[in-house]
């Protein structure tokens, strides 16, 4: 399954890119993050992050579908 992944803030710095296309068999964002974390060794744990699928907040066990945009977000720090 093909997905697009976007990173913000320190995750973007650590992945070295703001966006990438990936081919994966992961069933949900939790599995996907573990797969990416093995590659990038992110400084933040899954418990500190939030995830969005197609521009809506999603759960770590939400199903992933072909063509989804998945975004991993560090703790919000606006204001």
């Amino acid at each position: 399954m093909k997905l697009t992944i976007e990173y913000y803030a320190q995750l973007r710095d650590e992945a070295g890119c703001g966006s990438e296309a990936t081919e994966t068999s992961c069933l949900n964002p939790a599995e996907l993050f573990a797969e990416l974390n093995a590659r990038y060794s992110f400084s933040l744990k899954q418990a500190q992050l939030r995830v969005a699928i197609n521009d809506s907040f999603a759960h770590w066990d939400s199903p992933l579908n072909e063509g989804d945009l998945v975004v991993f977000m560090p703790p919000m720090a606006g204001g």
Partner: protein
Amino acid sequence: MFALIDTQTDLIQLRDELTDHSAGGYVSFEGWVRDHNEGQQVLKLAYEAYPLLANKEGGKIVHEAMDKFEIIKAACVHRTGLLEIGELAVWVGVSSAHRDAAFSACRYIIDEIKVRVPIWKKEYYVSGDSGWVDCEECAKHGHVHSHGEHR
């Protein structure tokens, strides 16, 4: 109304959009870039947003405030990009018949914006370091800052 903006804005225009003949009270909050944070001297900072979701979640928060409190109008704008000390980072305005609701709603909006809207802040320090700032709640709970970067 919630909007991301990438330049300084006209505060009087924002305020004037909340006026209403039935409004007796108006409360606004402004977040300004201050020259220090957690003991470090701050030079400037950059806000980065996930625009689509930030606008969606910001708008949702303003609507929640309209539902929860007896207010007339409410709005919020948040800056993105590079900001100097003293610049406006976020503005919240609320008008209502009575002041109690305006105070409560304004406080609600800024509190929720800070923890729910996907916006991140990178501080550039006088020391030459820079770092992404953890959210308030995380900082309170003693999580470690990731101040590892050097320019």
